């Protein structure tokens, strides 16, 4: 029942993102059902209109033709192909908000998805995206581009956050320095990191003829890695350091740690052998928000480096006329929820579950278990 509830909520979320992503379809500046068809002097407009099924002559004097609602664009091409037609164009109207057009476009898009057509995307080389291809063909490469930087960045963030939190807790003087660095990094937005690294790369490239860092994607095979990697790693690692540093500090004041220290165990041994296992729950608690930050940073970094990954493609200028934004947003949401699911499963496997036990028993166990481990360790 619980699984069904979460699956339903997930589905609701995807539908909400999909509907929100399509909001631009509600604003129309061109008539969705009227065309201006200019014909050559020897051609009769009525005869031309009769050749196109579904089209009706609206006003011969003004060369206006009515076509089925929402099909104006495809009918423009149909008319343009007919012999004797000089020009077929959509009719500009005063900008308006139309829910009818919104629902029509969403319905049309869903029908296309159902038939396996995910829309069109632009691709090309040397940052010159001029070739129109099927979106389903490039989606796989986009996911690969994004995941190949997201996963290493998240792994690096966990390792760095954990490592520096342990170092800061073991060596107090080092801890002060790391805390100060942490304070400054907390205040740096992800887009500033991209800017700084890009500018450093430009600055240092003046002193060498070699390319130090790839700043933008030049072609589908040369995708920048270092800039998105640093950007995505920063915020999650800072979050993890802060959480784990506080968690270790909290554990260090517990009774079993005082006992361990009193028995003569070194600070590093106490932290590595006894504290770390008890702060794993904090690590799993901070992983979902850290992943959310990482995915937001992925979008920012890919946008700034012109990478045709999931994030970069959202803001590609050509996308304003191509309906891939809803699909990309839903794909990113699915990716986020899949990672949350992975953390949940890992947490279930690695953490001790105390949920069904009586609260008093849990308290007793958490007090006794580490103390027993400390005792065993001290005796050894």
């Amino acid at each position, binding site marked *: 029942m619980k699984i069904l509830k979460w699956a339903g*909520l997930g589905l609701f979320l995807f539908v*909400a993102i999909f509907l*929100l992503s399509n*909001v*631009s379809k509600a604003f129309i500046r061109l008539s969705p059902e009227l065309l201006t068809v200019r014909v050559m002097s020897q051609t009769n407009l009525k005869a031309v209109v009769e050749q196109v099924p579904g089209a009706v002559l609206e006003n011969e004097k003004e060369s206006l033709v009515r076509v089925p609602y929402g099909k104006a664009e495809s009918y423009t091409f149909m008319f343009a192909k007919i012999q004797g037609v000089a020009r077929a164009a959509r009719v500009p109207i005063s900008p308006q908000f139309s829910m009818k057009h919104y629902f029509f476009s969403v319905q049309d898009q869903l029908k296309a998805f159902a038939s396996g057509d995910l829309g069109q995307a632009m691709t090309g080389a040397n940052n010159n995206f001029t070739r129109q291809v099927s979106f389903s063909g490039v989606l796989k490469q986009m996911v690969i581009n994004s995941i190949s930087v997201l996963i290493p960045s998240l792994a690096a963030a966990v390792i760095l956050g954990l490592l520096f939190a342990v170092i800061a807790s073991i060596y107090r003087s080092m801890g002060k320095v790391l805390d100060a660095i942490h304070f400054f990094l907390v205040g740096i937005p992800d*887009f500033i990191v991209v800017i700084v690294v890009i500018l450093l790369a430009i600055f240092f490239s003046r002193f060498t003829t070699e390319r130090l860092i790839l700043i933008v994607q030049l072609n589908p095979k040369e995708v920048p890695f270092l800039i998105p990697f640093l950007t995505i790693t920063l915020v999650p690692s800072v979050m993890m350091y802060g959480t784990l540093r506080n968690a270790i500090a909290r554990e260090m004041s517990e009774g079993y740690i005082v006992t361990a220290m009193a028995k003569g165990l070194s600070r590093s041994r106490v932290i590595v052998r006894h504290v770390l296992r008890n702060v794993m729950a904090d690590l799993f608690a901070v992983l979902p928000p850290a992943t959310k930050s990482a995915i937001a940073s992925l979008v*920012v970094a890919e946008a700034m480096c012109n990478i045709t990954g999931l994030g970069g493609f959202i803001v590609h200028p050509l996308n304003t006329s191509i309906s891939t934004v809803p699909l990309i947003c839903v794909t990113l949401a699915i990716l986020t929820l899949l990672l949350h699911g992975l953390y949940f499963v890992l947490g279930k496997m690695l953490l001790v579950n105390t949920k069904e036990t009586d609260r008093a028993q849990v308290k007793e166990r958490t007090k006794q278990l580490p103390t027993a481990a400390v005792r065993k360790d001290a005796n050894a």
Partner: protein
Amino acid sequence: MSQKKNWKYVLAWTLIALLVAITLFGSYIMPHQLGAEHKIVFLNAYEGAKKLSPPLKPNSTFLLGTDHRGYDMISLILNGMKYTLGLGLLITACRFFIGLPLGLLAGASGRGRDLLKTMQWLTTSVPALLLIFPLLYGLFFGLALDTGLPADHPNIKLFSIIFMFAAVFIGTFSIAGQFAERAAFYSDKMFVISSKLMGASLWRIVFRHILPNIRSEISFAFLTEYVGVLFLMGQLAVLGIFVGGGEKVALDDVGYDMITLTTTGEWMALISYGAIKIRNYPWIILSVGAAFTISVWIVQFFLSEMKKRHMPISR
């Protein structure tokens, strides 16, 4: 408290007071004016054979350089500060104004907590950017904001209202959920139970008994949320979404390459513009990025010193 700690506490207050003062009076201390008559087309100076024209690099007259219209970056930043920091503050305040009573009432009464949790999950399970960006992106182009509409255009006002509403909605349930937990915690305390037994209403329990106990937590959460809102606004700016109007400016002689520039100096619009021109005119994004980061640091420093003073953590 040691003298050193006291010194840092005073510094935190001084910096935050300075930030507020510059935000409020920034437009009065601008070194250059930002009117249409203050635009620069060409200078009476040459760089090689080419006549100098904006954007100008940082120099003795324009310490942080200029934009494409010849407007001084320092003046733009000082003038735009109140719009950006003010909007962030307004969004945060609205989130708290709705989320705090909602959470406290749900937590203290125990009613509606499941619904609140569901809404919290829906609005926080994926990055806020993914929920808010598609909507605003569609509206930005749908309302023709990319065509450089003036600041008082009805479309700009409509977009600003929707931006505000979306940004407030996305964060309200997380605040409500957070404070529902705290209210539920305090509801089990003896003084609240006694008050209930004596017939106190839910409103009285929440606002007279629970609220005074979590005053510092609210202020810390407010500042943390404020920084989060500023970060979200920054991310949206990099993706080309910002509040406020501007004017369409040609970046080349033939008018092929056009860009929307802010007339007020609103920081998000400057970030959006600077991000596009980072490789050619790095001082634009560097100057506004530095101003943004320093402001965030000041708020973070203030928050950290407040926490140290009111919630000391032993390490």
